[in-house]
């Protein structure tokens, strides 16, 4: 099993619903977030393009945050999900520095927090909160090893890219272009 997410940049309108849904689902304190929106504008008027991306932890196959964690709080669970055990985390921030995607933040309660791919929901057979709320249905989630999963199907028919491939982290967020 290998969980992954595909984000259709052609459909995303950057509304931020994924951000609020994650905050309320996971009780992320206001002022912090586990996912966010990036708007990239290129060209000059009137030949301008926008790419909108909903971003979060890439749940890398080769996760630098896990390798550098001094206590083992950062670890990888079933399906490749990168998680942090809050009560083992000393809040040193090494993982924050190591992440090329800026996907982690220091929780005001003293530990480092990040996207969990809503594993508490996956355990109940639901998808992630961001996937289920997205008004444009631009997020696809599932098991890459299952050819019939939403994410596998999305990747099969479209061109895609990953972010910062040069970092060698083998990220598992795929941006459909």
């Amino acid at each position, binding site marked *: 099993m290998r969980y992954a997410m595909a984000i259709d940049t*052609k*459909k995303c*309108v*950057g*509304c*931020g*619903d994924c*951000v*609020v*849904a994650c*905050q*309320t*689902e*996971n*009780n992320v*304190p*206001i*002022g*912090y*977030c586990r*996912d*966010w*929106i*990036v*708007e*990239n*504008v*290129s*060209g*000059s*008027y*009137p030949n*301008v*393009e*926008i790419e*909108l991306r909903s971003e979060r932890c890439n749940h890398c196959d080769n996760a630098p945050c896990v390798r550098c964690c001094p206590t083992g709080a950062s670890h990888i669970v079933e399906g490749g999900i990168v998680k942090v055990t809050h009560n083992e985390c000393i809040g040193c*921030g090494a993982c*924050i*520095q190591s992440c090329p995607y*800026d996907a*982690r*933040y*220091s929780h*005001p*309660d003293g530990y480092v927090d990040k996207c969990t791919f*809503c594993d*508490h*929901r996956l355990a*109940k057979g*639901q998808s992630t909160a961001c996937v*289920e*709320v*997205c*008004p*444009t*249905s*631009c997020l696809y989630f599932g098991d890459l090893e299952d050819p019939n999963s939403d994410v596998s199907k999305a990747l099969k028919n479209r061109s895609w890219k990953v972010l910062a491939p040069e970092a060698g982290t083998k990220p598992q967020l795929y941006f459909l272009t």
Partner: protein
Amino acid sequence: MKTRRDFIKISALGTGAATLGLSALNWNGVKALYAADEQEAVSDEEMTAHATYCEVCFWKCAGWAYTDKKGSIRKIVGNADDPHCKGRLCPRGTGGVGMYNDEVRLKTPLIRETVGGKQYFRKASWDEALGLVTSKMKEVSEKYGPEAFALFNHGAPGSHFKHLFHAYGSGNEGEPAWAQCRGPREVGFAATFGSWIGSPEPTDIRDTRCLVLIGSHIGENMHNGQVQEMSTAIDRGATIITVDPRLSTAASKSKYWLPIKPATDLALLLAWIHVLIYEDIYDKDYIEKYAMGFDQLKTHVKNMTPEWAYGITTIKPDLIRRTAREMAAASPAVIVHPGRHVVWYGDDSQRERAIAMLNALLGSWGRRGGFYFKEKVPVPRFPQPEYPHPAWDWKDNLDGRYPLSSMGITTELLKASIPELGYKHQIKAWMVAGTNLPLTIPDNELFKKAADAVEFIVVVDTMPMEIVKYADVVLPECTYLERYDYIRSASHREPNIALRAPVVKPKYETKPAWWIAKQLGERLGLGAYFNYNDIEEVLDWQLKKLGTSLEEMKKTGVKKFPRRSGALYLHEGEDYEFNTNTGKIELYSTDFEDHGFDPLPNYTEHPQPQDNYYRLIYGRAPMHTFSRTSNNPNLWDLMETNSVWVNPKVADLWDLKNSQEVWLQNQDGVVSEFPVKVRITERIRWDSVYMVHGFGHNNKKLSRAYGHGASDSKLITNVMTDPMMGGTGMRGNFVTFLTEKPGKELES
């Protein structure tokens, strides 16, 4: 230390390219919503789901609000059976819980007091506040007649107070939805097809092959169902054509973006009509069977060629032709979208007419992928006496002006409140429920004069909006999560209803609008109109008439009904009578002609900006609803202020830097109250600037929103009024930049 709050990067993708990190740009301030022991996510099974429909905007999506074992609201998600949202709320609906949690909500009734020449608000009991409002309503009724008490309203609370006002004897109601928003499109489409567009729009976007947006920014304008269907249309390969001086999000997803010179849209529409007719690519069978006035239209647009339009719009003739052909190729599965906020230049009803006519030529009305025939379920009225007939209402004050207005014109109600303006019938008191007039109505001086002139103002709201500062009595309403409201019966493909039931008990001393209206009604001796103990009684009675019950609706939230009015679309060759004077689609409007207006639309030239001035264009952000949500902690977290978008060429001229604070001054010398940050972006034309509407709050009680950004409404002092329906055209305002704080020398 590097934080994700530093997440504003300049990327290297070309001139002016910028990456903006959205969300959580605030570092300080707000604590977690729950205590530390509640920090983990809770699974849905451990919570209770309550049926509601959203009130953060007026699309009114049905949803489920989840409470945990302690009874705290944890999250709100969409109701999968609801055609408005199909189980997916927008960011505002998802963040609706912030409306409940906002710590600066109105908490108790307030009464204005003057002590030693100073005015302040004093906390009052409901009994005292309601007593005062009742005595004022009686006084106004005795002195001037009940008609002199006007109601300004928006949203669900409005319906309860409309009932109260009708029982009291006043028909003077106005909501910004007409003259500040969508009135012109209803006039334009009614003249052509004999039908309003209404809300939700009956646009069959999910099945369209071509969607044409004229200044309509679906995606930033987050009307949920439309955004969802636009996404479906993108998936299905539909062509999107966007006309906008700004590269809107929708424009960025379009095959064709027409970066039009502002205020010239009507010329483009007429040229498109010209191409369809003169290239013989309109829907001939449809026009022959259903329409009248084709020959007059053909003659009318003869010279309105793409070359003619090019000189006006700056859109190249070839592009005008190609896009017209795209539409024709997709016909009848094509939508030239009527838009929603369409009060721009004062000839808006005629522009909307041209949009309607274009749709007619494309055969899209009543066709799959065009416009479907909507249907709703009538909700039976709970037994009550007939309403009294008011001696006059707002229409009687118009003296033949704005003959096609069919909803109260807010600005006319304001003018009737100012004695010097000499209106035949005077307004003497207001109730304002759920609408923040100072940040909604253009020409702030008019609003202030009117507010000064009236004898009494009662405001019903959940938040200390600017309007509250003008109130004599403030009645704090509880949020939609704490109350029942009337049943939502929406027109859609499938008729449907939705229930709003309280999720939690009202916080503080807040009360639901239905209760406030009933209390006032009883005190006014109008108890016969409120002949029930509790709204549950009314809802259950109505729901049983509709074949369900309050108990059942609490479990389902939504109920759908079979259609009775016929099919969604016209059958091949079906005879159909349109609700116009002639029973036909009127390409030549007999109704407009009867009222002395152009039966066929003409392009009128509107002023363009003077040197060093830029047209002020405003619009929506997907996470905010007007000025209503700016202090909502969850939504403020996504976007805490607006910025003024400036083209890089303009920024160079003025030596402006990204994030620099400027003040905007309009053509009449009005300066924005607060500074606004510059966003230099290639997304906006060089002759315009753009701002998101709803910011620049000046009520200090708004802990988060106060002083953030500039208010577009305050800078709109030139109002171009639509002579047909009273719409207040707001796009004829021009601003320049002040890089120093105005009046700085005086201060020091």
